[in-house]
Structures are given as structure tokens and as C-alpha cells.
């Protein structure tokens, strides 16, 4: 039993995941890729926390570490389960972990590889129920049919195989599977990135409807700022394994305090030809997490970098109500939000 503020579902503290780099015949560890480096954030009930960042920033690893689908190096994940008990997911034994995963689930990015092509939809959606011994026989079938209706699929298609469905429908199957054990918290890992725009909108609407109906909390991971802004209540921005800014969606998009956030907002192409803009174009590319630059990881690309940034790594500090940024000059810089473009 651990303490956590009563208003939280999930509280992630000092999460780290270092992958060892092994070299040579004897596989000696010569260094670490700091995929997730001392990240903390929390999620309130019924809230969507958006996690945004470019490829390789560690957002997917972070999402999987929370579920312990990947074993984190250190940190704690306090989670309130369905009975209202607060457990540290990191400390759980295999049996307890299995039990708590009924309350926290994952929706995958790729609707093709996340469904076993040799199982029927019935078996796929029923798997969590069968593995946890929750339902059997006719009851099980009825529940799966109900789940299919819930995500907008025809429940007569129970015996079909995944290849008979389109990408969007497959993603619905994945959502139904995640919902089977009635979880309270779902990690959506780029859940709409592989879909066409029109289908993407369907799935986003579905996720929002389900959130309202079932009181779900989401950790919504995406590289698409538009989607993040649309669906999230609060947003965290990651860069090379570190969280660089968290704030409510409105604050973050209106007045970002980290230069990287500003650059991200500015780089996103806007579907409006009249707003061809004076955008900020960063030089260079995302730093290599196996060999990050000194000081602030963002300094080689940052247009506002000063000498201090090259040597000293900034920590997260509060710059406003519920607004945190990891920049030495947060609050001092005049940065443009999405509307200022």
C-alpha cells in the first residue's frame, strides 16, 4: 500500500529505462541508450494525457514500461486498481501483475500485426476473459458480441478472421480486446497513426465516446500534434528520453515555454494555404539517445541556446499553474503558440 493523492489514477515517478549497448565477442556493456530518462507525470480519472514527441524520443517505451510490457530500469508507477487500492506496479509479483493488467490495457499502433491472423475475432476478443478465467461458454460469447457492438462492429462477424476486416475495423477489434476486462486505464500507443484520415476520425470519435461512457483514462501517445490537441486534456512533450514540458492542452498550445515545443507547433503543416507562415525550421535532427549532447539535449538545435545550455542540464520546474518546463530560460523567452503562427 502506497500513498497517492486521491484525485489520481496513475502517478509515474522517476521512470527510467536504459537499454545496454553491447559490443564485441563477449557482449560487454559499453554504454546505455537512455530511452526513458527520469520521467514523471500523473493522470486523473477520466482524463486523457497526451504524450507527443518525434521518433526515438522514448514515448512508446514509456507507455510499455508503465504496463511493464517492457521491464523498466527503475522508477515507480502508482496505480489505483478497481477496488480503489493504490499499488506500485513496479513491485508486483507475476500473479498480482496479471491481476492488475485487467485494469490497465494497451491499444497498439499497427492493426495488422497486433491481431493473430490465425484466430477468429471471437477468440481474439475473448482471450483476456479466458486467460483470467472470467467467463465461459455462452456467457463469454454474449459478452464478446456486446463488446463488438460497443466498438461499432457487427456482432454477426464473430467467426471471421482478421484479414476479412479493413484497417479501421481491425483497430476496433483491438479496442474491443483492450476493453474486454473492463479496464479503467488504457495506453493508446499511436492508436490512429496507421489509419487514413477519414478512418482516423472515426476511431478518435469512438475512443472519446468510450471514455465518456465507461469513465476511462487514457495515456494517448502520438507524434501528430493535431490529434494530440484534439483528444488530450493535458499534454507532455518528450525529447530524447526526457519530458521537456507538461501543461494543460490549452496552455501548451497557446503559450509554450520550451523552445522545442514551439518548434514542434510551428513545424506542423496546417491545412490552410492562407497561413503559409514564418515558421521556425530547426536545423539538424533529433539527437541520438545512445550518444546525447552535453547539457540540455536540445541545445545544438535550439535557436535561443546560450553558453549555460551547453554545460548544464535543465531540470523540470514549475512555470505556471500545472505548467512545467525543462528549460533554463522558461518564462523568460517570448515563445509563439499555435495561434501566433
Amino acid at each position, binding site marked *: 500500500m502506497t500513498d497517492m493523492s486521491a484525485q489520481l489514477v496513475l502517478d509515474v515517478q522517476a521512470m527510467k529505462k536504459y537499454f545496454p549497448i553491447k559490443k564485441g565477442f563477449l557482449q560487454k556493456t559499453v554504454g546505455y541508450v537512455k530511452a526513458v530518462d527520469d520521467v514523471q507525470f500523473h493522470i486523473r480519472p477520466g482524463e486523457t494525457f497526451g504524450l507527443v514527441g*518525434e*521518433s526515438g524520443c522514448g514515448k512508446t517505451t514509456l507507455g510499455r514500461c508503465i504496463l511493464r510490457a517492457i521491464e523498466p530500469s527503475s522508477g515507480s508507477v502508482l496505480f489505483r486498481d478497481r477496488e480503489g487500492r493504490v499499488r506500485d506496479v513496479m513491485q508486483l509479483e507475476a500473479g498480482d501483475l496479471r491481476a492488475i493488467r485487467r485494469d490497465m490495457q494497451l491499444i497498439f499502433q499497427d492493426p495488422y500485426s497486433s491481431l493473430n491472423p490465425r484466430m477468429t475475432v471471437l477468440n481474439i476478443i475473448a482471450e483476456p476473459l479466458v486467460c483470467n478465467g472470467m467467463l465461459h461458454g455462452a456467457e463469454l460469447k454474449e459478452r464478446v458480441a456486446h463488446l463488438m457492438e460497443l466498438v461499432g462492429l457487427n456482432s454477426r462477424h464473430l467467426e471471421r478472421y482478421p484479414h476479412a476486416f*479493413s*484497417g*479501421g*475495423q481491425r483497430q476496433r477489434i483491438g479496442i474491443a480486446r483492450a476493453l474486454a476486462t473492463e479496464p479503467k486505464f488504457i495506453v493508446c500507443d499511436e492508436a490512429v497513426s496507421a489509419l*487514413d*484520415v*477519414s*478512418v*482516423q*476520425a*472515426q476511431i*478518435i*470519435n469512438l475512443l*472519446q465516446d468510450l471514455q465518456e461512457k465507461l469513465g476511462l483514462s487514457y495515456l494517448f501517445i502520438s*507524434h*501528430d*500534434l*493535431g*490529434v494530440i*490537441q*484534439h*483528444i488530450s486534456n493535458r499534454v507532455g512533450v518528450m525529447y530524447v528520453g526526457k519530458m521537456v514540458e507538461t501543461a494543460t492542452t490549452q496552455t501548451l*498550445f497557446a503559450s509554450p515555454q520550451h523552445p522545442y515545443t514551439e*518548434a*514542434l*507547433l*510551428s*513545424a*506542423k*503543416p*496546417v*491545412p*490552410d*494555404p*492562407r*497561413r*503559409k507562415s514564418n*515558421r521556425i*525550421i*530547426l*536545423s539538424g*535532427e*533529433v539527437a541520438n539517445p545512445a550518444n546525447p549532447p552535453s547539457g540540455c539535449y536540445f541545445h545544438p*538545435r535550439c535557436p535561443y541556446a546560450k553558453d549555460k545550455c551547453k554545460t548544464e542540464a535543465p531540470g523540470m520546474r514549475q512555470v505556471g499553474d500545472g505548467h512545467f518546463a525543462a528549460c533554463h530560460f522558461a518564462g523568460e523567452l517570448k515563445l509563439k503558440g*499555435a*495561434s501566433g*503562427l
Partner: protein
Amino acid sequence: MGRQEEVILEMKDVKVHFHLDEGVLKAVDGVDLRIKRGKTLGIVGESGCGKSVTSQALLRIVPKPGEVQGKILLYRGGKDGTDEPVDLVKLDPRGKQIRDIRGGEIAMIFQEPMKAFSPIHTIGNQIIEAILLHTTDDKEEAYRLGVNILQKVGMSNPEQRMGEYPHQLSGGMRQRAMIAMALSCNPSILIADEPTTALDVTVQAQVLQLINDLKEKSDTAVIFITHDLGVIAEMSDDVAVMYLGKVVEYTDVDTLFHAPKHPYTKALLNSIPSVSMEKKRLESIEGTVPFPMNLPQGCGFYSRCKHAVDGVCNAADVPLVEVAAGHHVRCLMVESERTEQEVEA
């Protein structure tokens, strides 16, 4: 602008059909487009709408058993001694003439730069080879041109990059190198097939800016293919929206984003969650894109369209009609609305 808009490529009723055991797959089914010098034509659509196959048809690299029909007229501006346009459809896809045009006149950049480069040759060697094929016979001259073009696409230390292998470059650099190779022979048309889809937003912004700069400097026509409406708005002068192998709306970029006519375009624009939009429920399009084989008569969007009228929209194939100057729409409802207005007036 003052300068007359010069059409350098014209597609007339281009069709690409794949004859499969299961039936005829109409990947591209009657596309009319015009590409103008120094302008960017954006082609946008969801996966499977035929936008990539259209570009393959231009280079005659449609995979078997695809068959290209119609007319693709390339105005070479006297390069081969006549002012008569060349019909690319009539050329032998393996012949000398089309190979000259490929890379020389029309160049292409792809989504995945690793696929465009051979992993066992240096970037320099591959660029030089392309230059030797089309521009000059002198190896030293080719090397100099190669270094030049790498510098032009913004690569640091171009001389050193010439000796590097593709895997040594980062994603954005690879994309730049591929653009360099495509531009090495001063093509008059550059086809960019989802060139930034695999890139991060901040790098995508760099590459988009590069393509725009190069276009303005060398007066190249660009065909920009993507599914991302944001990128289209950023890059294009004219836009063609494709659905099920057909162009459903074809107009200039401002009209498309601010006064779209076709229900599909409208729905598409409303379904993107965008940074600048206030929060509201996304408008989604019901159902999914049908498989382009054995399609029923009538409008391809019929089954998903909110404004569809039974007996009208699904009766016969819908023609692409010019509803205003330079604004083409393939929708009967839009057309009838217009005629009503005319009658009232």
C-alpha cells in the same frame, strides 16, 4: 505573375488497369491533369485511391500486370528537334526514349530513401552515374556537378558525403541525397511520392522548405503526392483530390481549402484534427474505401456520401464538370445546385 502558365505535361483520360484472375482492378480510371512549369500539383487521397499508380504511369514503371491507357503528352520544348509532344503511353516501357525521359526529363523521389539507393555503392557514385547517363560524358565534370548538387540540397561537407554509403546518413540527410540525385540532371518535372511521410515533423519542415526553394530556383514543375492535407496546403499551387482511381475535385489550392465543392473533400477537411481548430467532434466519413474491383455503376463515393440521392448518384458514371473557372468537380449534386442557381438568376 505576368509569365504565361506553360503546360509541360498533360494527362488525358489516363487509365491503369490491372488484369487479375479475380477481375479487373481499376487502380486509375480516367485521370485528366495538367502540370505547369514552375508550379506544384498536389495529388491527395487516402490509401488505395490510385495516387501513387498515377505517378508510376507517368514514368511507365507500373508493375505487371498493369496496363496504361489514354494519353500522357510531354511537351519537351524542342529538346528532341520538334515541338510536337511525346505521348508517353505509346513508348515502349523498356525502350531508349522512355529511359532518356526517366531521370532526365522526369525524376522521382520516394517515401523510403533507402529503397532508392543501392546499399553497396557510395552516394557519390550513384549520383555521378545518373549524371553520366543523362548530362555529360566527362567523369570529372560529373563529379563536380555531383558535389554542386549536394551543396544545393543543403548537405554539409559535400565532398565527404560523396564518399559515404547510404546507411551512414540519417533519415533527413538520406532524403536530401535522394532529392539531389533526382535533381542532378535538371529534370523539368519532379514527382515526389510521399517524400516526408517517414520523417519527423521538424525534419519534414526542413525537407518541404528545400523542395520549395529548389522549385523556385530551377523552375521545375513538381507533382506532390501525399495523404497529408496539411502538407498539401503548404506545398501546392493546384490540387487534385483522388478517390477510387478518379479525380473528384481539381482546382487551385485556395479554393480547395476555402470553398470545396465535393462532399468527399469537405468531409476529408472536416475529419482532420488540426492545431488551429477549436475543439469539436470530428466529422468522420462512415464506412471504408471500397476495393476498386467490380465496382457498381455511378459515383464511387455513393455508399459513404451524406448527400447521395438514390437513383441519381448511382445511376451512371459521374463526369468531371467545370463548375467555375479552373474548378472541376465530379458530383451530380453540385452540378444540379449550380444549374438551379443559374435558372434563378
